[in-house]
């Protein structure tokens, strides 16, 4: 039984990490119908920024962790807004495919910029950012970090869910994602709203990036794509555009991947994960929580 519960914890931790990143995809997709391929590389960028900022903040003693987190999240948000202004805003009216290629290009720029600034080799993520240490119950070991990750995941989801459904800006975001032009007619300031979406997506993604760095101690400039695709699949599993969907999709993917490599075969874990996605999309094309889009004639 311990093995099962240990695997459950492994899966939930990995899943909630994916959830953080999936959130960025879901929000941007919800509003611009765009797969923000550069999002995965933004997450990597956050981890590398933390590597540079953390030693500088150590001087502030206990507050070091907070200052580093804040500084990284803010800088990633600014970069996310710049990304939107440069690579996506001019293409608002352009055909969908050119938006996708622009996102791929932006992703490549960020990835290679990281490589040129921080080097091609894996870098070590600072250990003092998050509390290390383990708690052991009978035979199961749970690191404090994974507890933090789970809690943060739920916390972020709740705040966002309330933000989207209860605040004026949140309603504007929902309006924009249901019908772009009508929302514009109703006086929704499109540019600001889109900027806020990138700000939130980037910020939560940055948090995810640092948590990944802390969990696995190493970050490489090229890890963005792999995490990005898994997180986007999680977003689709949960139903693209739905915030709780991103979280549950992440957990579902994390658990599937973990139990598959634990009980089926680690060699085919990725294959089973992708097959799950394909099968689900065939039967429920809009994911678990997604809205079904009736095609208007």
């Amino acid at each position, binding site marked *: 039984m311990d093995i099962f519960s240990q695997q459950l914890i492994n899966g939930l931790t990995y899943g909630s990490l994916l959830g953080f990143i999936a959130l960025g995809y879901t929000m941007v997709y919800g509003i611009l119908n765009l797969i923000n391929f550069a999002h995965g590389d933004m997450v990597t960028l956050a981890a590398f920024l933390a590597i540079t900022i953390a030693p500088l903040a150590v001087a502030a003693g206990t507050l070091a962790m907070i200052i580093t987190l804040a500084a990284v999240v803010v800088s990633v948000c600014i970069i996310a807004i710049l990304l939107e202004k440069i690579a996506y805003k001019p293409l608002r009216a352009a055909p969908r495919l050119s938006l*996708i290629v622009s996102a*791929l*290009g932006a992703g490549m*720029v960020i990835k*290679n910029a990281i490589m040129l600034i921080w080097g091609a080799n894996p870098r070590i993520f600072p250990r003092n950012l998050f509390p290390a240490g383990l708690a052991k119950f009978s035979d199961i070991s749970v690191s404090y970090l994974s507890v933090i990750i789970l809690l943060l995941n739920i916390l972020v989801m709740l705040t966002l869910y309330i933000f989207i459904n209860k605040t004026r800006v949140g309603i504007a975001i929902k309006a924009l994602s249901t019908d772009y032009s009508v929302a514009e007619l109703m006086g929704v300031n499109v540019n600001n709203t889109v900027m806020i979406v990138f700000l939130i997506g980037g910020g939560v993604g940055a948090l995810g990036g640092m948590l990944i760095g802390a969990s696995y101690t190493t970050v490489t400039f090229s890890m963005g794509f792999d995490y990005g695709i898994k997180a986007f699949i999680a977003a689709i599993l949960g139903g693209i555009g739905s915030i709780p969907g991103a979280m549950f999709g992440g957990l579902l993917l994390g658990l599937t991947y973990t139990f598959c490599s634990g009980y089926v075969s680690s060699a085919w874990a990725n*294959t089973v994960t992708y097959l799950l*996605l394909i099968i689900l999309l*065939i039967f429920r094309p809009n994911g678990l929580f997604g809205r079904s889009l009736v095609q208007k004639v």
Partner: protein
Amino acid sequence: MKRKLLIAVLLVFCTIYPIFANSAWLTIGATFFIFSLVALSQDIVLGRAGVYDMGHAIYFGMGGYIFAILVTKLGMNFFAAAFAAVFLPALLALAVVTPVIHLRGDYFLVVSIGLNFIFTQILNNNPFRLTGGPNGIFGIFPAPFMGINFSSSVFIYYFAFIVITLTIAIMNNFDNSRYGRAFYFIYQDDLAAASMGINASYLKQIGFMMSAVLAGFAGVLYALEYSAVSPETFSVDQSITFFAIVIVGGQGSLPGVLLGTFAMFVLPELFRGFADVRYLIFGIAMVAMMVMRPRGLMPTKYGFYPKKLFGGDT
């Protein structure tokens, strides 16, 4: 007129090219043809039928691996192996694509990425010791036949040149035919096309089979040129490059896709100097291209109808 003259100049240049190109540049020339073939095959499904396929390297890889396995493991002669490696991918493509052909836009895109990951994992897991695992298969040298040494660079260059020229001619015919126009119809509005009796899923399946034949052929040529095939050559990153080539070059436009391939595969060989900055430049170029020319370098100008009949020019 001018268009015909330019095509003639290009054909002549490509024919005499091997005479003064050293063997490294001969390989780059052949590589350009091979990757143009894959880009053109991607353009059939992405540029014409409008299917968001970001896992096209699968069919390229199927051709390469089937040919490699038949030649190295079963010692098959060149023609039989090439024949199988060109037409088997068409059937495999049909089997892979049919269950998901109905998915729309971004959903198909993510599923195609998933399929590509699965494909590379199968190659890596070396089932039945066929695919050689991560090493891939090397030492692909089909037995010479009646004096033709299939592994000589010059032979491969001219073979690829003939295949690409035929492909361009056939695709030109295809555009000016019932099926070609039907592909554009289902891309523009598949519901309206259905109201004209055009079954989008059926045509997309045909599109994938045709493009799998071309990509399979490119796989054979690749296996011949590099005498080795390995999983990373057919990874998702490669599919993304083909996807970008078609969109940057211009969907449905033959010169556009050729130019896109040239920019993505031949120019880097010129920039060998500053190697590590190269991908950064490509990223910037992709964004800049899309912002300045969202429809690509040379988007196709429809008008696939006999000009004289209606007296209009495009």
